[in-house]
């Protein structure tokens, strides 16, 4: 395999690795790498030596992809984009890991509140906040073993679960956005 084909193969792999980026950005990154490699080979270096400093395609593409995902997450204000961006950073960033963890926790709370709300609509007498004569408390669906328990909240259960859904969702998104901003800030302060 000659130098030109070695470089051509590497650049094709780079283009595939950057497939998620907008075409203009992808082409720009690939063309810049091509220009660099062609200059090195023209100066007498082998393709293998010229490629050495770039590393593997995956390693070279990673910072560009991470940068793109983070920028897209910040500008789009879309939770899914933010989650994707944080997942790519979570292995190397405690901020991303904690952001995702807390967001998942609040996401779980959202789900619990939603299930309670749906369950209450389906079985209004069996779901709520119950207390019995033995001062036992039950939240959610009343266990069949709990006899004589009285529901305490009534329609307030709907209000509280809806408020719980809204608040948990808000906190989950806040965790994602704060983590994203923290990572962007950290990256801008370090080379």
């Amino acid at each position, binding site marked *: 395999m000659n130098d030109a084909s070695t470089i051509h193969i590497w650049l094709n792999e780079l283009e595939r690795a950057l497939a998620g980026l907008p075409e203009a950005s992808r082409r*720009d*990154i690939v*063309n*810049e*790498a*091509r*220009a*660099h490699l*062609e*200059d*090195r080979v*023209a100066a007498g270096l082998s393709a293998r030596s010229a490629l050495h*400093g*770039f*590393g593997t395609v995956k*390693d*070279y593409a990673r*910072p*560009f992809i991470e*940068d793109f995902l983070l*920028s897209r997450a910040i500008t789009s204000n879309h939770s899914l984009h933010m989650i994707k961006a944080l997942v790519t950073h979570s292995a190397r960033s405690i901020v991303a890991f904690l952001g995702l963890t807390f967001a998942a926790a609040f996401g779980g709370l959202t789900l619990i509140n939603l299930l309670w709300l749906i369950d209450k609509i389906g079985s209004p007498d069996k779901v709520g906040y119950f207390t019995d004569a033995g001062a036992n408390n039950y939240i959610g669906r009343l266990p069949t073993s709990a006899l004589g328990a009285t529901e305490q909240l009534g329609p307030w259960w709907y209000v509280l679960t809806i408020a719980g859904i809204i608040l948990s969702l808000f906190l989950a998104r806040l965790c994602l956005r704060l983590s994203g901003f923290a990572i962007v800030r950290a*990256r*801008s302060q*370090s*080379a």
Partner: protein
Amino acid sequence: MTSSDKSSDTRRTQLYKGVLELALLSLLDEEPQYGLRILDRLREGAGLDLSEGTLYPLLHRLNKAGLILSEWRHEADASHPRKYYALTAIGQAELNAQRHDWLTLTQNLNAFLLRRSS
């Protein structure tokens, strides 16, 4: 490579991370340059042993942050276009601030490190 060589490399890598952006902005303060030339100048002139995998993502990030701008130029003596980078006004201000901080820090630190030999 021995374990002491590896430790020395790790130390240098950490030090380089802190000064690479400063060196890069300082270089572009002279005149617009393209990636390969920037790499060679920083290696030879500043003694920074950095790789293409470090430089180009950094250029990309600084470009997006508005500290530098880029344009493709096709020069008569080149067989293909090259992407040139130049300092912006924001980049110039950032360079001035970083250079001031660095010179102050190194002046104080050098004096401190050399205190016993004087």
